[in-house]
């Protein structure tokens, strides 16, 4: 009988990480084959927070879909709203007024900073820099205060409507927002002082998790991950939407494409977003904040007691919603994680026949295996943080 030989030095052990694990940034399960501390194979298992949002949207009238889709990627809710509202506006060929375009741009960029702050705080926490979390969440809270001031809610604001935004910004918002946009680059400089020369942070990020640019493109990766590898691809520059064509901003790109470049690109994006907010506030046009098309947009509250027409429109919109002629639209925007696309299929009724989100986290997660295989477990956790998936968006 042949003796079974076990080479203890080259033993492969399969370890299950998650789905409930603080380092997986959500409900992500990783099945990892380890040889000692080296990751030899990796399989992400997703679907633990799948809630069927896309299916539920088919049962709601168009304007009731908005709060649903916000809850997919719960860190970048303004982007989810913009993707859906923009798609519906293209379906019904509704032009939004200039002020609404600028307001949306301001809130999207505030949301981008907010999302990057959550990413920076939690990822630095994974790497042992606990104080970063408090500094990042201090600034994040200021953004949430701004959201609350303008929309009444800190998260999931339902601020964007088909045709514009629900309310104009209140008195005092502009000054507060401008003060934030001026303060933010200073704060970003302070984060950089904390991290850029931190030996532990550098040795955990430099040269780790490199995937070549061509491979990232094959895998459909977009956003800061792709830009960190040196590909200057940003939908805000590439396609014409909202007020971005009138804004002067740069697209930060990396050179190597390691985790350090990913960090640098996102941090630089926060500064660029602050610049966009400042410019948009300077150039904020006067005028209506929502389109004046009573077939799609609720009439002002003040008209309801005086105008029969307005009352009828209000009643029709609230009970049935508006109908959309048959057609289909794919509209994509640059979210903090990459290309966020929304596909809406209309069948002529007041409810969409299909709402599909092309979520950047879902697609980017495919690159994770190549980022992590061949590195240490600890580096895998760092790479996952730098990938920045939001599992609510992955699973929808």
């Amino acid at each position, binding site marked *: 009988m042949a003796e079974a030989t076990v080479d203890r030095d080259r033993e492969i052990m399969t370890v299950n990480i998650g789905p409930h694990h603080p380092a997986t940034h959500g409900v992500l399960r990783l099945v990892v084959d380890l040889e000692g501390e080296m990751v030899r194979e990796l399989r992400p298992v*997703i*679907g633990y927070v799948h809630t069927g949002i896309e299916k539920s949207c088919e*049962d709601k009238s168009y304007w009731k879909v908005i709060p649903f889709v916000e809850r997919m990627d719960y860190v970048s809710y303004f982007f989810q709203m913009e993707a859906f509202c923009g798609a519906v506006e*293209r379906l019904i060929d509704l032009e939004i007024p200039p002020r609404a375009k600028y307001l949306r741009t301001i809130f999207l960029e505030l949301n981008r900073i907010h999302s990057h702050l959550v990413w920076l705080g939690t990822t630095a926490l994974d790497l042992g820099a606990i104080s970063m979390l408090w500094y990042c969440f201090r600034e994040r809270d200021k953004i949430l205060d701004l959201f609350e001031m303008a929309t009444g809610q800190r998260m999931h604001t339902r601020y964007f409507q088909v045709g514009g935004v629900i309310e104009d910004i209140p008195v005092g918002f502009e000054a507060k927002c401008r003060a934030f946009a001026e303060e933010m680059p200073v704060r970003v400089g302070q984060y950089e002082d904390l991290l850029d020369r931190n030996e532990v942070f550098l040795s955990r990020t430099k040269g780790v998790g490199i995937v070549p640019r061509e491979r990232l493109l094959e895998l*459909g990766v977009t956003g800061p991950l792709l830009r960190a590898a040196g590909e200057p691809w940003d939908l805000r520059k590439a396609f014409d939407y909202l007020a971005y064509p009138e804004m002067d901003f740069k697209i930060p790109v990396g050179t190597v494409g390691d985790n350090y470049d990913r960090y640098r690109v996102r941090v630089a994006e926060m500064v660029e977003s602050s610049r966009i907010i400042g410019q948009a506030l300077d150039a904020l046009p006067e005028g209506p904040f929502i389109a004046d098309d009573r077939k799609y947009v609720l009439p002002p509250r003040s008209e309801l007691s005086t105008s029969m027409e307005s009352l009828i429109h209000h009643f029709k919109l609230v009970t049935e919603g508006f109908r959309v002629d048959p057609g*289909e639209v*794919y509209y994509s925007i640059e979210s903090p994680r990459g290309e966020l696309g929304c596909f809406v*299929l209309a069948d002529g009724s007041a409810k969409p026949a299909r709402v599909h989100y092309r979520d950047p986290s879902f697609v980017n*997660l*495919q690159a994770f295996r190549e980022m992590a295989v061949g590195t240490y477990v600890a580096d895998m956790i760092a790479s996952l943080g730098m990938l920045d998936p939001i599992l609510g968006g992955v699973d929808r």
Partner: protein
Amino acid sequence: MPDAPGLELIRGEIERDCPGAVLATSYDRNQAALNVDPARVLDVLRWLQEQPGHRYDFLSSLHAADYLPHQPRFAVHYELINRERVERIRVKAMLADPGSEELPEMDSCVELFPTADAQEREVFDFFGIVFRGHPNLTRILMPDDYVGWPQRRDFPVGGEPVTFTYSEERYG
């Protein structure tokens, strides 16, 4: 976006190299789309990916939709980007429902676009469209033992009945 005449030019060029593959074109709401024979979809995708001067080589999204009650019922959409000219084009393959328990089938494009891996699994998971040649076509978001194709239009929305065994045993 290629404009409407540009789309017709692209169609003409594809027609020369792969005759009969493109069934129709549509230019609706500033979006260009090629309606493609599902059996020839790989030919068209490869042409768009490799043809010098076109090179729609970035697949930004792959998703499906159910057009019930229209026939053919299903469609798989490929949203392609030409990053040089900054143009989008949609390739759309309409698939008929084979009826009864059979599932509609078409070729997988994972060989051409590795990004399609997870997205084709998602389409299979929710619509029951089988992609021939996919390396690992299993459910991705729904549980592995789930029965049914939940994003089809005739799949009911609503809760599944839950049996509360404790109450049943105790109170009948």
